[in-house]
């Protein structure tokens, strides 16, 4: 093999394998995405991949058996002989058709089917309307009767998620930035010991804190308020935020701060006018993390918001549909996709900061 040939093969191998892995990774999300646009009955009765052209047995005509036909013996229809059970499963005729018995033995109705190219591509936006507005809608059942069913009010949950996530992202960053500056550039007794305390708290899993905090909230009558969830997320996110921001703030060049001091600036001015603008990359990295973390969080919301329906966030709503209407795939697929919309947007538009944050150790401990 010449070197060029080997190179070409190598490139093919690398790209082929990479494409395969990417394909496998994309399939689950793709399936959900496609399904969320399919008709509710289509979702229940055929796989989402059937929107691609495929060959399927389709009904071309129907026939009735004569009433005097003995249905307990093998019967001969269109040149094939088979028992009732076999017809139920479907029997192929010599000319490539398939005969399938529909209904019970007495009915004697037979469908003639042919293998044809087809797609199941009927797309609709109805699932999204149903899951967002919570209006009642009428559906036609297979037997022609009508049924009224309630959709889901996810738009309210979407707004709640925003009301929880934005402050629960900004507040810990603000508090952590103040603390990081204090630890990095101010002198006070016990500085080192207190900083070590914060770092040590990185090991505490939030499960430990849930119950004592819940008790405090019940005493303070805070449970089920936005403030309760913000404070909880602030508490659980602070050690990491302080640690990361300290690493960044303490590396800033010393002479900038010193010249500001000589000009008579106070700590507060230096912090708001100098440190915050200089730390934007670090703040942004952590902000994305905290935002995604809060938006996607289920446990903290579950415990501190609990059963209050008017403050429920997206993840809770979705988990509730999974629990109570787990086979309503038209609601689940659309709902799941709506809940992913904002994080995916944030993620793709700010991927650079996200990666930087990961490299700096932004992983919830």
């Amino acid at each position, binding site marked *: 093999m010449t070197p060029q040939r080997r190179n070409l093969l190598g490139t093919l191998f690398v790209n082929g394998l990479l494409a395969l892995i990417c394909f496998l*990774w994309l399939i689950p999300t793709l399936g959900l995405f496609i399904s969320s646009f399919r008709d509710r009955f289509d979702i229940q009765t055929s796989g989402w991949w059937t929107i691609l052209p495929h060959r399927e047995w389709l009904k071309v005509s129907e026939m009735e058996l004569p009433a005097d036909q003995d249905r307990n013996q093998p019967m001969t229809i269109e040149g094939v002989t088979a028992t009732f059970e076999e017809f139920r499963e479907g029997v192929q005729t010599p000319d490539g058709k398939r005969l399938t018995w529909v209904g019970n033995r007495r009915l004697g109705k037979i469908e003639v089917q042919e293998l044809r190219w087809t797609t199941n591509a009927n797309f609709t936006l109805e699932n999204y309307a149903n899951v967002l507005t919570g209006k009642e809608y009428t559906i036609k059942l297979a037997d022609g009767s009508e049924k009224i069913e309630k959709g889901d009010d996810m738009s309210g949950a979407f707004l709640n998620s925003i009301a929880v996530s934005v402050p629960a992202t900004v507040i810990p960053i603000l508090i952590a930035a*103040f603390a990081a500056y204090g630890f990095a550039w101010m002198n006070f007794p016990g500085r080192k010991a207190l900083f070590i305390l914060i770092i040590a708290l990185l090991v505490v899993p939030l499960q430990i804190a849930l119950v004592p905090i819940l008790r405090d909230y019940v005493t303070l009558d805070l449970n089920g308020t936005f403030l309760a969830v913000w404070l909880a997320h602030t508490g659980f996110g602070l050690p990491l935020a302080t640690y990361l921001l300290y690493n*960044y703030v303490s590396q800033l060049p010393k002479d900038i701060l010193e010249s500001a001091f000589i000009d008579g600036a106070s700590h507060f001015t230096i912090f708001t006018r100098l440190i915050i603008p200089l730390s934007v990359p670090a703040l942004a990295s952590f902000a994305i993390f905290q935002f995604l973390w809060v938006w996607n969080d289920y446990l903290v919301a579950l415990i501190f918001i609990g059963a209050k329906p008017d403050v429920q966030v997206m993840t809770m709503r979705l988990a509730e549909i999974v629990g109570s209407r787990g086979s309503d795939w038209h609601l689940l697929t659309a*709902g799941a996709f709506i809940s992913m919309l904002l994080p995916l947007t944030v993620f793709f538009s700010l991927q650079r900061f996200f990666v930087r944050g990961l490299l700096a150790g932004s*992983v919830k401990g």
Partner: protein
Amino acid sequence: MQSSQELRASPFEWLTATVGRVLISILIPLITFFGLWQGFLFLRDSQAPKFVIVVVAILWGVGGVALLYFVSNWLVEQLPGRMTRLIQPFLFVGPALAILIWFLALPTIRTLWISLFNSDSSQFIGLGNYLKVFTDPNMLEVFRNNLLWMVLGTTFCVVFGLAVAILADRSRFESFAKSIIFLPMAISFVGAGVIWNFIYEVKDKADAQIGLLNALWVGLGGEPQAWTALIQPWNNLFLILIVIWLQTGYAMVLFSAAIKGVPGEILEAARVDGANEWQVLFQIMIPQIMGTIITVSTTLVIFTLKIFDVVIVMTGGQFGTSVIATEFYRQYFTNRDFGIGSTIAIILLVAVIPVMVYNLKQFSEREAF
């Protein structure tokens, strides 16, 4: 400087100025607190349209915290210079410390304390709960599951992450491929639960399978299976698969950065000396990025130790898939056994500590940011 000016003024003027300043110093914080309190009441009780509430909540939450800092700093700066210097640092680090002590430090001690009592915290039983937890066959199954999560979840994430990082490094479609592998990291566990429930969905044998896995399985001639409830303990693997899908992106990003940091001359030198690509990979590249591999592994170990959402959404911890965090939830909130619940939380803490300490050491050795 200020005080010398004040001394020169007449005593009466000095008095009114001081009283005025003290009054303002009291008044402004009072107005601030009153305003914030009104905001709180509005948010708690208001029946306003949702959209309005959301906007007010964001303004109140974010603005409120900023305002508190601003006002208390203003207050501190009114004090004589020496006092300001003494107090101001605590204004900066104080809120963080207070919140951390309330939300993490004290709860740890309180949980430890509760774990020494019986189920309704009425009777001290010493280490009785710990004894019970470590001898209960149900709990042993929980520990086994967590071990499965730790070993399999971590291993596969590391292996796939490394594979993708290495492949992408040699491909022209690097950033595109990395984005795709990375994408699940933005998806919530609940969302991922829905996605994978859909893949594992099982239908009657007579009906068309709408779950991808069962469709493939039936297509190959198998019987439809309920994968997550199937023969225990193998159903755990189908749950672990979800986390592998979610977290490989994390491993990949760190490995990718590490690979880019390996000096090209070393790899070139090895190739010139006649090493083939596999030798370059296993004898030079991987030893070079060993530090990152360890960091990623420890982080993933902690992550899988604390796994909760995936299990609770997929199976609710039934069918022998319960893990420490879900068992904690079940004991505490379903069984209302506060003693056992707290004990499990403490065990989780103890399990996490050594890995986390190791991880922090690794991080402090590397340059952050």
